[in-house]
């Protein structure tokens, strides 16, 4: 199977686990930047779609980092 949304969720949460130790603004930048720099566009799109659908299982930091408001900031 292509990375399931569970796989993507686990991977994104692992990234959040690393950046969580930083002040929130930095952590959100770190999470978003890492996913932008290393994930393929389809993976990012699927994660965005999952967030748009509620982001079940995702770390709130990931949701916040990738939310349109955060991206625009």
């Amino acid at each position, binding site marked *: *199977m*292509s*990375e399931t949304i569970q*796989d993507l969720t*686990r*991977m994104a949460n*692992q*990234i959040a*686990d*690393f950046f*969580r*130790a*930083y002040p929130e603004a930095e952590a959100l930048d770190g999470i978003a930047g*890492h996913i932008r*720099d*290393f*994930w*393929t*566009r*389809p*993976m990012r799109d699927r994660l965005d779609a999952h967030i748009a659908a509620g982001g079940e299982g995702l770390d709130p930091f990931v949701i916040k980092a990738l939310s349109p408001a955060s991206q625009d900031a």
Partner: protein
Amino acid sequence: MARLQEIDYGTPKRETDKTVTLTIDGQSVEVPEGTSIMRAAAEVGQQVPKLCATDMLDSWGSCRMCLVEVEGVRGTPASCTTPARDGMVVRTQTQRLEKIRRGVMELYISDHPLDCLTCSANGDCELQDTAGEVGLRDVRYGFGGEKHFGEAAEAKDTSNPYFSFDPEKCIVCSRCVRACEQVQGTFALTIDGRGFDSKVSAGTAADDFFGSECVSCGACVQACPTATLTEKTVEAHGTPNRTVLTTCAYCGVGCSFKAEMQGDQVVRMTPYKDGGANEGHSCVKGRFAWGYASHKDRITTPMVRDRITDPWRKVDWDEAIQFAADRFKAIQEKHGRASIGGITSSRCTNEEVYVVQKMIRAAFGNNNVDTCARVCHSPTGYGLKTTLGTSAGTQNFKSVEKADVILVIGANPTDGHPVFASRMKKRLRQGAKLIVADPRRIDLVRTPHVEASQHLQLRPGTNVALMNALAHVVVTEDLVDEAFVAERCDSEEFGRWRAFVAEERNAPEALSESIGVAAETIRAAARLYATGGNAAIYYGLGVTEHSQGSTMVMAMANLAMATGNFGREGVGVNPLRGQNNVQGSCDMGSFPHELPGYRHVSDDAVRGAFEADWGVTLSNEPGRRIPNMFADAIDGGFRGMFVQGEDIAQSDPNTRHVTAALEALECLVVQDLFLNETAAFAHVFLPGTSFLEKDGTFTNAERRINRVRPVMPPKSGLSESEAVCRLARAMGYPMTYDHPSRIMDEIARLTPTFAGVSFERLDREGSLQWPVTEKAPNGTPTMHIGGFVRGKGRFMITEYVPTQERANRSFPLILTTGRILSQYNVGAQTRRTENSRWHEADRLEIHPFDAEERGIADGEMVSIQSRMGAITLQAEISERMPQGVVYTTFHHPSSGANVITTEYSDWATNCPEYKVTAVQVARSNRPSEWQLEHEEVRRTHYRRSMEPAE
């Protein structure tokens, strides 16, 4: 070139700025203080006759052949043991010396066979040469020596597969014994008996070489001045008559070798003394295990097939290339440009890797390129770039000679990087302190004349906790190098890190239970590392192959920065790279997010430079990593793959998942020496070239770019890079080089750290360590002198996050995997050599208690089951293992070690977590289901057209 015979200066070079000047045979000579008269004489071309001396070993002074006269000194001192002094006047050749030497030689020859014409060392024998030099014409004592000759001699020992030991020819110079001690550091050989009864022995009287502790590094064979220790290939073929300097194709040490040839036949490989990485030493793989290059299993003709269950059909290069290109193009037409990609190999040259990533980016039109470093050292690149600014180790290997404290983490250098381990052991014998952090009691923990001050036998998966605990001690016990940090590091980042590691939850006492090491032991290790002088970290895949692999690399960089251990010799953070060109394959832009030189594909300026040079528009989006390729192959979004010199079906985790992905591909092209496990699922096989046929460069773990020179033409008729260029052209992208040096010229033109590199310079200067730039025109043996590459060193906060892979009641043991000295990676090369005599099968090492609890006896077959699958192996009960942890290797495909490893991976790089798999072990009397299926695949997927179809 004609046969290269290096000058033997007799005694080692001294390294000091102080010099002395003396006169030898009327010539004035200035040498470093401490240099022997013998070496000083050799420096001005006066070779003093010698037998027990050689410049790889400390002087011994036993043969009495190198006597000289010194004005004002009574007698005739041995030149090997007498240091040169200011104003000395030395004569190396007088009538008195001639008479003494001839007399000594008479004694030697009286107890030595006179079968020179049929001796394997004829023409390459120091005893023969020295007899000639001293003018031996008669032996007054006859030729019937009683101790080492004729009936008195012990039988020839031919037990070692690569060399023989003929005691009859031994002159008891002890060079072999001393080489084993001083160069290799194994102490397997000894002199048995006293006086005239003295004989070389491999351990006890009952031991032969094969059964002894000898590790077959070849140092004794190289040191032997007679035919006593001789390569069996020399016995079979005679002495070589030409030399090609080249680089070993095994581990990341990247040893320089002399390929000694007769025509296009390799007679032997001998380590090159001027090789910067190895300085004349070798291991059993590089020295002897090169026979795979001409093994009968080599495939030298391209092959294609429509379906993976069809027999292979031999075709010519044009047909194979067109077949691959047509399929790739058809896939892209139907499924889009991003539906194909490829993998580069750390076993291939920089030039070969570069053209593959270029083909993928320019001809395939996407960034779906990844490399086998994904599954080994990708966290090294991420972690060191983040903290220090560059994705590479900081030192050269020689640096270890200046280390006072050596911290080895998750590496087993005596097995994985044996030539570097010998250097390290030499420094440890000189008094440097050793800390080992490893769940297993690896050999380094206690080996002859070496004993670790601390063995931190941590639980697999707790590396980051350990590193945080060490840092806690450094910070809270005031052991920080404040001046270094203030000058060299980002103060805000440091302040945050300091506060983080100082928290009580990071104290050894708080983490001790998780780590499995007593708090006081952790404190002692931290104090030793921080206060013991120059402290150097060496690490391997036990660091990187974890869910926190990248975090751990950053944690080590933090510790080294906090204690000021960067920017000079003897310190640093040093990855021991698994394969010979891991560093190079990463440098060459093999990652899907980076162009050559570690520059992100989204960087418009960088991408623009490549676009201008390559004449094509490049994607600015990161491509797929290997696990993404597998996942998307199963899902149908990824359908074509080019695999260069890697056996992903054996080496990558969760074998069933990998083979399901490969099976789903519409076109898999494998470029390799052999029909490996991955080739079972291929549609096109392009024959690759062994290192003996390659023309290019490898870059080792110390960033040293070394030449790989062909000793014979490609057996397939085509170089690998040319095959790739043809495929790129067939895909519609013009890619042509008239010589591999042109590829390096392009790399240098587009990659700032390689700016000063060319074949011409490498041929002239031997090797260069990148960066080779305008600022560092002669390369950079030590990184970060005076400042970090990124500017200020960046401390990163490294929170310990336990892996999700946990032991439980169903899977109560933790499996960790690794390698063994005699085998290499998936074993494709070493399994096709006599090295398999040392390791015929992968075994499961298990602690006696865990074995007893399960009723397992040593040597019994056991089933190892994880939540991913099961395999059956032979058990080896071993006290090297801690209770609760089992270990195996993955050198043999039928073992299927990766059937049971999981999909968990490093958070930053997706490097698989090979080192932590929860398993249960039980007695078994049958192969696992996967192993039975694997046998079936071997029957059905490897047939060639001459074999009858089913």
